[in-house]
């Protein structure tokens, strides 16, 4: 909810929106001067003779749409108006005038829509015209268009090389910004990270070819995260986190059937609801289920599964995150309420409102999915599409085999809650050429690393459950055994286990095949260390 001044607040909440100098509905459409409008003079001007304005905004896409109808007596607002085209076109008596609106109301002309109650206006949208329709019988002109996100939908990309996004490791958030920038749109985004491990969501492939629309790429990336793109009133695309939906979250406004609800339409629909989702990422795939949907919505009688390909979901956690996001979107489609009320202008998409309506028995918090504004001779109203403020969780797998037990740990296992740890390893005696490979959860972190006195650091992103760190000896060095000492630090640098708290790494000098201490490659010694994250 945007901030408002007291006057506007009083006007919106009053049952009598009808004072002469205050509280009555008002609207302004401000047209920016296009370059070809030579008679226009000012840089921007209010559109005169407005009969009606309609504006729609929706959570599914950042783009908003609008329709404006104006009276167009004498064709003054027509873009092709020309002085004296049909003899003396006269506005009054003998005074022929050229129209300043020549070459103005054309596709791509920029405008902004402001709604208000008398003198207190709020800017609602910035957009450009798509279509102009002139009705000669009715002597009206109808202007339809979309907000600035239209550029992402209809403009095509212009990459400098082959792709706009050349970096495969770019964060999805930054990629969205780059794609929007390429078509001239300003945006505010953030680095998308997996909750918990804080692993970044990366695009994993080059993207953004010539002749592609950025919106197509952006929609598929953003839909599978817990974020949405919302265009603000100035035409800036803003990334927002989808809030955690719960009936107990705080409502910013209350709609009551005795005070302002004029129409109400409540719907319960399961046609787009699935209880299982298969998330695929290349060759890897996981199936996630919601037992809540299966039990409460399908009454255990229907089984519906959908399949989604998500290129960046390369770990189980990320795929689970996608499933959670998609289940949440289903929750929003499950119970829907549409109400028509006198327009409450500061309400924004995703705001939580409380609705109390006797016939549908709705009396709980819902959040806003779409807003339709209508300004006509009948007044200024808005229709709010609301969805239940609740979410569905991914169920824990029930019938899967129990996870394999972690391998026995040679070094003392320990348990942490941190998502990241760093372990410093160094040789506490003579640097005699001790070398080893280090593996973490099956992935090689270091190859034949020389253990010196100065040492090296292993940065470990821990997944939930047991994590296996494995040291494989390559060379015991010229003297005695392969040895090392550890110090374990948390992500913030605090020492968890200092040198000496843990036993040293020791690998016996057996199966050595050369003087320099190299082990037989087939009989290398190894030590495992299990670190459990809860």
């Amino acid at each position, binding site marked *: 909810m945007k901030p408002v001044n007291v006057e506007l607040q009083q006007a919106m909440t009053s*049952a009598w929106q009808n004072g002469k100098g205050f509280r009555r509905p008002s609207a302004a459409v*401000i047209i920016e001067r296009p370059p070809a409008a030579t*008679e226009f003079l000012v840089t921007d*001007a*209010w559109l005169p003779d407005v009969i009606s304005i309609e504006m729609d905004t929706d959570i599914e896409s950042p783009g908003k749409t609008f329709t404006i109808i104006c009276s167009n007596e004498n064709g003054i607002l027509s873009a092709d108006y020309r002085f004296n085209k049909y003899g003396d076109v006269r506005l009054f008596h003998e005074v022929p005038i050229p129209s*300043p609106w020549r070459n103005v109301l054309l596709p791509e002309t920029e405008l902004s829509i*402001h709604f208000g109650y008398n003198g207190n206006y709020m800017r609602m949208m910035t957009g450009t015209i798509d279509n102009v329709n002139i009705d000669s019988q009715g002597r009206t002109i109808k202007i339809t268009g979309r907000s600035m996100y239209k550029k992402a939908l209809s403009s095509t990309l212009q990459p400098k090389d082959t792709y706009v996004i050349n970096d495969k490791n770019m964060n999805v958030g930054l990629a969205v910004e780059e794609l929007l920038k390429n078509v001239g749109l300003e945006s505010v985004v953030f680095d998308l990270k997996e909750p918990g491990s804080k692993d970044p969501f990366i695009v994993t492939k080059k993207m953004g070819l010539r002749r592609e629309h950025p919106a197509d790429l952006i929609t598929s990336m953003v839909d599978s995260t817990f974020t949405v793109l919302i265009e603000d009133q100035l035409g800036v695309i803003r990334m927002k986190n989808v809030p955690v939906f719960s009936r107990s979250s705080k409502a910013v406004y209350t709609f009551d059937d005795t005070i302002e609800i004029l129409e109400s339409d409540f719907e319960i629909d399961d046609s787009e609801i699935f209880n299982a989702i298969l998330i695929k990422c290349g060759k890897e795939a996981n199936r996630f289920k919601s037992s809540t949907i299966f039990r409460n919505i399908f009454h255990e009688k229907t089984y519906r599964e959908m399949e989604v390909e998500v290129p960046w979901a390369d770990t189980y956690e990320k795929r689970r995150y996608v499933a959670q996001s998609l289940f949440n979107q289903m929750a929003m489609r499950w119970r829907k309420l549409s109400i028509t009320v*006198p327009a409450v202008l500061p309400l924004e998409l995703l705001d939580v409102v409380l609705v109390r309506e006797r016939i549908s028995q709705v009396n709980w918090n819902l959040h806003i999915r779409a807003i339709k504004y209508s300004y006509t*001779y009948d007044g200024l109203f808005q229709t709010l599409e609301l969805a239940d403020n609740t979410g569905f969780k991914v169920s824990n797998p029930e019938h899967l085999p129990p996870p394999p037990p972690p391998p026995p740990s040679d070094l003392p296992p320990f348990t942490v809650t941190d998502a990241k740890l760093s372990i410093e390893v160094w040789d506490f005696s003579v640097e005699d050429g001790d070398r080893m490979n280090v593996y973490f959860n099956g992935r090689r972190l270091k190859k034949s690393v020389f253990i010196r006195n100065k040492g090296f650091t292993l940065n470990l992103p821990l997944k939930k459950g047991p994590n296996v760190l494995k040291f494989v000896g390559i060379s015991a060095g010229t003297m005695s055994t392969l040895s090392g000492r550890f110090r374990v630090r948390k992500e913030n640098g605090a020492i968890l286990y200092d040198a000496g708290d843990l036993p040293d790494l020791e690998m016996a000098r057996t199966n050595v095949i050369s003087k320099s201490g190299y082990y037989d490659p087939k009989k290398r010694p190894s030590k495992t260390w299990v670190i459990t994250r809860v």
Partner: protein
Amino acid sequence: MLPTLYSHVEETEIFEGPSIVVTGAERVWLSPMVNVEENEVGMLAMDYAVQAAVTSAGEITRAEVALVTHNAKSNFTRQRKIIRGSRTWTRVFLPVDTGQRKIGIATNEYFRSTDNARVRRIFYHRYVPSTYVHAIHELKPPKPLYGLQMQNTLEGSVRTQRTGNTGTEIEMTLCFLTHEGFNKFMETRHDSYMIIKCRYGLYGGYLNGLDSEPSSVGASVFLRVKMISDQRPGAGSNGI
């Protein structure tokens, strides 16, 4: 006061621009003076444009210009219309009563130093009593044109919103002694801007042809008409 309907006879250009006439807050500009003769009324038509920037957040400021008329005899400047925000060339028609009159533009305190108002051309139109109309009969007091749109909420309380315009509808019967007078009036006057002066004030506007009801009794012809004016009922040319 006998109600009188005035119709147009001639126009004169009294100012030719375009020029920036006002810049910044709380300034007034007045046009050259016109003399509206005794037993006549006038109408001043002015092309104006306003450049008023929006705020850095893109919101409309409270910058307004008032279109004013000035009475030289009483040295009083009266607000006639309030215009908020930027406008490209727009023509305003302001009827004025007998006397020495000027038309002008005044800015309010929210006008910024870079905001300005311009005037392109100003015309003075002379209006004299319509010779064909013998009398005006059954003049109704001005009726407001704004509406109070009533909406019922689901559980039956009232919500209202005021819509429509601040204008006026004035209903009257024009009496013509002969059908020739009626014919001439309909041919040359009926569809042009007119001014009525009566005890309710001075109003300028158009007769709504669709709403007129002609009838005749003997040789006389009567025309029941509705005049639509953009002056506010009760105020007429004496205010906003």
